C-alpha cells in the first residue's frame, strides 16, 4: 500500500522563482492495483512519481510504502528504491553497457545479488518484455527504438520491484510499438500481481488498462476514482485541458441525441457491444 499524506514539493524554495510543483496531495493506492496518472505537462505528475520512487524528497508531507516511511531517518533509501521500480520518460537514453545482458543486470548487481540470481533475473526480465536470448549479447545501441525501450524497462523489472512506475512508456513509439509495450505491461501486472502506476497522455490507453485514475491539475489532486467514473466527467476533464477517449465522446453525443445508451462506456469494444445490443433488440 502506498500512502501519501499532505505531500508538497516546491522548486527553488528559497529564490524569487519559487514555484509549487505539487500541493497538498493526499492519496492511498492499494497493492496490486493498476493506477493511471494523467494531467497536462507541468501538472506535477512527474514530480509526484519521482517522490514515490524515492528519487525526489518532498518539501513537506509523508510518503509511506507498506508502512515504511520514505525519507525518514530509519529508512534505507537504496533498499526502498529497489522496491519501487521507476521507468522514466524515454528510458532508452539511460542505456550504457556494452551488452544488453549487462545493462539489464545493472540494477540487480547494485542490489548485491549472487551471480546466479542476477542471471536468472536478467533472463526473466528480458523474457517478460519479449527480448529474445539471442539479443542479450548484442550492444543495446544496435537495437531498434522499440527494442531499446523494452531493454530499458527490463533493466527496471530485473530488480523485481513490487511497484512499477512508468512515465509515458509509449512516448514516441508507433502504434505497433505502443501496443507491444502496453500488452507486456498488462501481462506483467496480471502475472506478477505487482502494483502499476502508469503515466500517460493517451486517454485511450488509460481507458483500456487501468482500474483507477489519478488526475493532477496545477500540482493539485483534481480527481481520483474508478476509470469508468473518471470518464463520466468529460466537461471537467476538458476544462483542465484533458479529454476523454473519442469513443466516450461518441457515446455521450448519442445519449444527448436520444439514443438509449448506458453511461460509463470508454472502450470501443464496450461501445460496440452496447450499440449492437440496442440496435438488434430494436430490430426484433
Amino acid at each position, binding site marked *: 500500500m502506498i500512502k501519501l499524506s499532505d505531500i508538497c514539493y516546491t522548486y527553488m524554495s528559497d529564490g524569487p522563482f519559487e514555484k509549487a510543483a505539487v500541493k497538498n496531495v493526499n492519496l492511498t493506492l492499494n497493492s496490486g492495483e493498476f493506477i493511471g496518472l494523467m494531467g*497536462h*505537462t507541468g501538472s506535477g505528475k512527474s514530480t509526484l512519481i519521482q517522490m514515490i520512487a524515492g528519487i525526489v524528497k518532498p518539501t513537506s508531507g509523508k510518503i509511506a510504502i507498506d508502512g515504511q516511511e520514505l525519507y525518514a531517518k530509519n529508512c534505507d533509501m537504496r533498499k526502498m528504491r529497489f522496491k519501487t521500480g521507476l521507468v522514466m520518460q524515454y528510458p532508452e537514453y539511460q542505456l550504457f553497457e556494452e551488452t544488453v545482458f549487462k545493462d539489464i543486470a545493472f540494477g540487480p548487481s547494485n542490489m548485491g545479488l549472487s551471480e546466479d540470481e542476477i542471471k536468472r533475473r536478467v533472463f526473466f526480465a528480458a523474457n517478460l518484455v519479449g527480448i529474445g536470448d539471442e539479443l542479450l549479447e548484442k550492444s543495446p545501441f544496435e537495437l*531498434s*527504438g*522499440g527494442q531499446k525501450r523494452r531493454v530499458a524497462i527490463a533493466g527496471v523489472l530485473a530488480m523485481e520491484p513490487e511497484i512499477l512506475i512508468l512515465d509515458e512508456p509509449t*512516448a*514516441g*513509439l*508507433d*502504434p*505497433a*510499438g505502443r501496443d507491444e509495450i502496453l500488452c507486456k505491461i498488462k501481462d506483467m501486472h496480471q502475472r506478477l500481481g505487482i502494483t502499476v502506476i502508469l503515466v500517460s*497522455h493517451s486517454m*485511450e490507453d488509460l481507458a483500456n488498462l487501468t482500474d483507477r485514475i489519478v488526475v493532477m491539475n496545477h500540482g493539485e489532486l483534481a480527481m481520483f476514482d474508478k476509470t469508468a467514473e473518471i470518464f463520466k466527467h468529460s466537461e471537467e476533464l476538458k476544462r483542465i*485541458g*484533458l*479529454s476523454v*477517449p*473519442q*469513443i466516450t*465522446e*461518441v457515446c455521450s*453525443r*448519442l445519449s444527448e*441525441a*436520444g*439514443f*438509449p445508451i448506458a453511461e460509463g462506456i470508454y472502450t*470501443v*469494444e464496450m*461501445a*460496440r457491444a452496447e*450499440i*449492437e445490443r*440496442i*440496435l*438488434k433488440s*430494436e*430490430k426484433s
Partner: protein
Amino acid sequence: MDTNTKDTVIDVNNVEFLYEETDTAQVLKGITLNVRRGEFLAVLGHNGSGKSTLAKHLNAILVPQTGNVTVEGFDTADENLLYKIRQRVGMVFQNPDNQLVATIVEEDVAFAPENLGVPQAEIKKRVEYALDAVNMTEYKEHAPHMLSGGQKQRIAIAGILAMKPDVLVMDEPTAMLDPVGRREIMETVKKLNREENMTVVMITHFMEEAAEADRVIVMDHGKSIMEGAPKEVFSRVEELKKIGLDVPQTTELCFLLKKSGLDFDANILTIDECVNKVMSVYNSKGGATND
C-alpha cells in the same frame, strides 16, 4: 501517376535507397509519388517503413541511388542546385531541442535567411512574418530552452518559413510532444496550409493527424501501398491494422458494427459522422422516436 507537372512541386520517381552501414529496414524500394502545390499531404507509416528516409530525399539531404527526385523541376542529384532545393523545401524534425541553433528566438528564426545572404532589412521582415505566422511574436526575445515543446517546434517551423519555401516537410513533428503541443502544431500547420497556401508534407504515425490532411499516402516496407482521401484510406481498417497502424475509434466502431451484420460502413471518420450514422440506423429501425 498524375503527371500534371504544372501542379506538381515535388516529383519522386521510382526511388530506391539502401543505407550502407546498417542492415535496418529503413530503405526505399522503388517509391513513386508526387506532392501537389497547395495540398496538405500526410505520409503515414510505422517506424521502419522508410518514411523518414523518404523525407530526407525531398530536400537533397539524401540522394536516390536509383530513380530521381525533382523539386520544381530541379534534380536533387545535381549538387549545383543544392541550396536552390533546400531553400524551396524546408524541413522540420522530430526533436524540437535538436534543431534550434541560437540562444534567442528571433536570432534562431533569422538563421536561414542569414545563411542565404538576405539583406538585413529583408531578414527583419521575414522574421516578423514567420513569428507571426506561427503565433509566437511575443516570445521573440525568449531563450528557446525556456519554452514548451510545442512552442519550440513552432519556432522551428518559423525558422523554415523565414526561407520562404514552397513546401514545408515535417518529419514526425509531434512525436515528442504532449497533447497540447500536438494540437498547437496541427493548428499551426492547418492555418499555414489554408491561409498562406503553403504546401505541407507531414510524415507521421498518428492517424488523427493524417485524418486532417487532404490526401494520405500509406507507406510500408519502403513502398507506397495506399493513397487517397483520409476517408478512403481509413476505411481499409484490416489492412491498416495488419501493417501496425491505427484507425480512429469512430472508424473502428463502425467497422466492428458492420462485421456484426448491422447496416454500417467503415468510411466514417469524425464523431459527427459516427453519431449521425448510428442515429440514422436507429431511427430507421423505429427507435425511441415514434415519428
